[in-house]
């Protein structure tokens, strides 16, 4: 949904790493299931998740930090888009990508680029400028959202350093019809409906959604809006067919289209000019999955996934209608995969799989419209072993071979030990990696809109610089181009260790301590200055960082109808080289008022930009099934954080960098974005188990920071009505 602001490279790099901790919401999920029906009370079913092992496993038995957000919780929050849901979870921060497109998710302090987002196990693409725009995903057909924290490259390959968010969508089950309409502030109208039925061997499910908003304007004194109006449509369908009790197939597809109308004031040669234009984003995917059980012990799943993403933006000058800016990006991803599961016995399960990924990108930002391809072959294994009843061990690994960056092996080892009925320990360690993306390899981009700079991918930089030099356009080299070598994949080594403890009957606590050590981080490198004073950037593997902290969640059901929960995350995210330089006494800061220079003490280095040291939430959910009333109050807190050198603007206003004392790092003497708390409330009443009325207010106290937090709209009122009908098929 594009807070479209013209990209600057500095930002992309300084935000590269963000760390956050995620606290599992185990307890909330089991609460969510209670709502299903009174009968479940007595035989509380355990939640089943698929993301952690690629196979369906009960969540409580998994040795890694996993959390789950169930459909009922999403409904109770009144959420419409994926970002609405994720922003309320412990340890997840939705961060605005000022110079990139969209708002991404920060997990354990990693930047949004480092979390893999899957829909039914298949990756969402469209990392146009690094992160994925979460508002592309409507939540109406989501059955549950599974979040695995810590590296999962051992199963999923590239991008799964911080974690994996897997969106599990509804499947055909019984006969059902749902329709919902919601209207709220900013003329935001959401209409969605689904229909599904099963008939003998066939199951069909179709979901449709239309979402429109007028956007919002946090700086009315300036031309244009903070978020421009947009409208999007989502269509999902899933068809299942059981050939026999042993063999079934599922065909899933998605189509998404979004149009946005822009009005921007841009700065050109020192003067402000008005522009207007359009942005269009589309994606579709196709995903057949064939499952066959050869025997009680052996199961095989063949999956095919093909997806396409494209976005186009243009801006025209208001004065004469001439083209001021245009940008386009197309990406496709195709993957066949075979996955097998073999049950040796109750204590040993082996999974083996392999596949091939073909990726293509085509964009004007590479200087031509040529298609760029890369291919990755991979194989993975995972063994689940229960040596004794109270101990489980999962060992796994995956090898990826890519046509550009070569081979990567990503192992992972996890273990769970049940001390007694009240205390369970979990520990897991693993390796994650992120391949250099197309942008870092092939960018050939000259941004005249944001004051002028160029970015050259490492595969094209040397040739392009030679051309510029031959044309006499290089004034000074800042870095020897010969040292711009082949980019390596970024790698992390991580440990997560924690415990689930039942402190009192029904008062549950989850604790997870994490440490991620990240090397080979790709950072922009200023390479040269042109004769007209513009900077030229490329990329290098230069940064090393770590993120560490702890996450904790408490859940306490009070009586049968009320559930209280508290979540907290503590986070330290630091650049290792800066830490060492500060320790060696080589980092200084100059008081901007007295102009006196002082040496920075280790305790005064705050860490990476956009990471809050503290964040937390407090939630109360109420659900009274007999009368149909439910309600919630959620308080979400994010502690203070810094902003890097972002060369972009929000509605024509520059974003002031936090560093004010001439050392280019974030220390305690710098300016910070203040910590803040948001309060969201909702109330709903269901009549006759079919019609549901809901009202709510998000951001009750209307907290905004127009320039510093552009993704935070003011107070939002909404009301919705929905109808649902469902009938479980009687088993023949």
């Amino acid at each position, binding site marked *: 949904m594009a807070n479209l602001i013209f990209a600057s490279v500095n930002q992309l790099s300084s935000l590269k790493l963000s760390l956050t901790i995620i606290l599992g919401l185990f307890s909330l999920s089991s609460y969510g299931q209670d709502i299903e029906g009174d009968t479940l009370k007595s035989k509380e079913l355990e939640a089943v998740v698929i993301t952690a092992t690629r196979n369906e496993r009960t969540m409580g038995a998994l040795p890694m930090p996993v959390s789950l957000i169930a459909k009922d919780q999403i409904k109770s929050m009144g959420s419409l888009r994926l970002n609405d849901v994720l922003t309320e979870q412990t340890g997840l921060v939705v961060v605005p990508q000022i110079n990139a497109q969209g708002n991404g998710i920060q997990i354990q302090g990693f930047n949004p680029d480092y979390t893999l987002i899957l829909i039914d196990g298949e990756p969402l693409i469209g990392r146009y400028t690094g992160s994925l725009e979460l508002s592309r995903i409507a939540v109406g057909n989501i059955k549950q959202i599974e979040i695995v924290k810590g590296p999962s490259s051992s199963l999923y390959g590239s991008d799964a350093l911080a974690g994996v968010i897997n969106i599990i969508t509804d499947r055909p089950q019984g006969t059902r019809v749902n329709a919902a309409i919601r209207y709220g502030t900013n003329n935001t109208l959401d209409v969605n409906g689904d229909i599904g039925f099963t008939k003998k061997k066939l199951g069909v499910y179709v979901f449709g959604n239309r979402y429109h908003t007028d956007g919002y304007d946090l700086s009315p004194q300036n031309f244009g809006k903070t978020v421009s109006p947009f409208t999007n449509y989502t269509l999902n369908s899933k068809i299942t067919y059981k050939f026999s009790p042993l063999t079934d197939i599922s065909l899933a597809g998605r189509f998404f289209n979004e149009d946005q109308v822009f009005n921007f004031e841009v700065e050109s040669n020192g003067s402000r000019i008005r522009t207007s234009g359009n942005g269009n984003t589309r994606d579709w995917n196709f995903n057949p999955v064939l499952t066959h059980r050869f025997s009680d012990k052996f199961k095989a799943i063949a999956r095919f996934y093909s997806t396409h993403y494209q976005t186009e933006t243009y801006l025209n000058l208001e004065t004469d209608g001439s083209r001021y800016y245009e940008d386009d990006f197309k990406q496709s991803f195709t993957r066949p995969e075979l996955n097998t599961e073999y049950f040796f016995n109750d204590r040993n399960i082996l999974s083996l799989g392999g596949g091939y990924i073909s990726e293509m990108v085509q964009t004007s930002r590479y200087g031509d419209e040529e298609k760029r391809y890369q291919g990755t072959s991979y194989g993975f294994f995972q063994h689940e072993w229960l040596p004794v009843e109270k101990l489980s061990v999962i060992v796994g690994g995956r090898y990826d071979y890519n046509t550009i960056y070569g081979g990567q092996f990503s192992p992972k080892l996890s273990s769970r030990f049940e001390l007694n009925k009240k205390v369970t320990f979990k520990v897991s360690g693993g390796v994650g990696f992120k391949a250099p993306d197309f942008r870092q390899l092939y960018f050939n981009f000259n941004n005249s809109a944001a004051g002028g700079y160029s970015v050259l991918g490492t595969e094209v930089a040397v040739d392009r610089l030679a051309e510029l030099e031959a044309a006499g356009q290089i004034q000074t080299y800042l870095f020897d181009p010969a040292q711009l070598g082949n980019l390596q994949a970024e790698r992390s080594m991580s440990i997560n260790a924690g415990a689930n403890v039942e402190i009192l009957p029904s008062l549950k606590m989850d604790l997870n301590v994490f440490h991620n050590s990240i090397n080979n981080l790709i950072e922009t490198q200023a390479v040269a200055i042109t004769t007209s004073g513009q900077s030229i950037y490329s990329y290098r593997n230069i940064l090393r960082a770590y993120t560490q902290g702890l996450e904790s969640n408490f859940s306490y059901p009070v009586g049968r109808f009320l559930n209280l929960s508290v979540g907290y995350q503590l986070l330290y995210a630091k650049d290792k080289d800066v830490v060492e330089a500060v320790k060696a006494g080589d980092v*200084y800061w100059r008081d901007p008022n007295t102009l006196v220079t002082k040496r920075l003490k280790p305790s005064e280095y705050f860490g990476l930009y956009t990471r809050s040291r503290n964040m937390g939430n407090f939630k109360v959910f109420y659900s009274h099934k007999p009368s149909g009333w439910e309600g919630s109050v959620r308080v979400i807190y994010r502690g203070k954080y810094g902003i890097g*050198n972002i*060369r972009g603007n929000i509605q024509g206003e*520059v974003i002031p960098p936090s560093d004010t004392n001439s050392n280019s790092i974030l220390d305690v003497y710098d300016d910070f974005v203040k910590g803040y708390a948001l309060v969201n409330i909702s109330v709903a009443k269901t009549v006759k188990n079919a019609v549901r009325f809901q009202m709510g207010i998000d951001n009750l106290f209307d907290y905004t920071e127009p320039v510093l937090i552009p993704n935070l709209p003011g107070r939002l009122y909404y009301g919705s009505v929905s109808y649902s009908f469902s009938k479980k098929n009687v088993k023949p």
Partner: protein
Amino acid sequence: MNSVKSILSIVLIAGFVAAFTGCSENEDPLPVVATTFTNLAADPGTGFNPSNGQPTGLTRQFTFFSFKTGDIVAHADSATNKWDLGFNGTTIIVNSATSGLGTSQAQIVSGIFDELAIAPTDGYKSDNDVAPIAGAPNANLAIPTGSGQGWYTYDGVNMVNKPTAGKIIVVKTSEGRYAKMEILSYYKDAPANPTFNNTARYYTFRYVYQPNETTSFN
């Protein structure tokens, strides 16, 4: 003619130095003090071109400074060793080799200005010591140019050059005396938080000059 003049001035200065050091021989050397020089105009130009934001009316001439006199040296004396450093925009030259007839040398060290009690004995460079990088005319200067390379860091948001904290320029003058300096601001009147609207190319810096033949700055 010019060369005669400069030879003459070298002779004169040599005589003066001899006289000065002769005088002070019987007295305890006075403690050296830190002096702040404000608003050294480094070719600020006459205005701005509104279409590209670049300054106009540039003279393309360096402004010369002598630590010994603590003052600006007239441009007419460019071909002498009367000056130690020359300033034009963000470029700082030392009076040696490719930049001047003197033998001044300099280096940048990291540290706290007040804590630097003794000048390093080696590590100084003339303006031709660094191997030039192709296409980079200023890359061989003793005080490197470019953001993050020498004495300043460019703040792309406010579009200002900020002197990097903890960078001290140590100069060995043509007479073999030592000076240390810390650049505090690149903007006129050294505003606390300069922006694009402040007038650039005005140096404010702090320095200590040791007139005696010692590396000590105390």
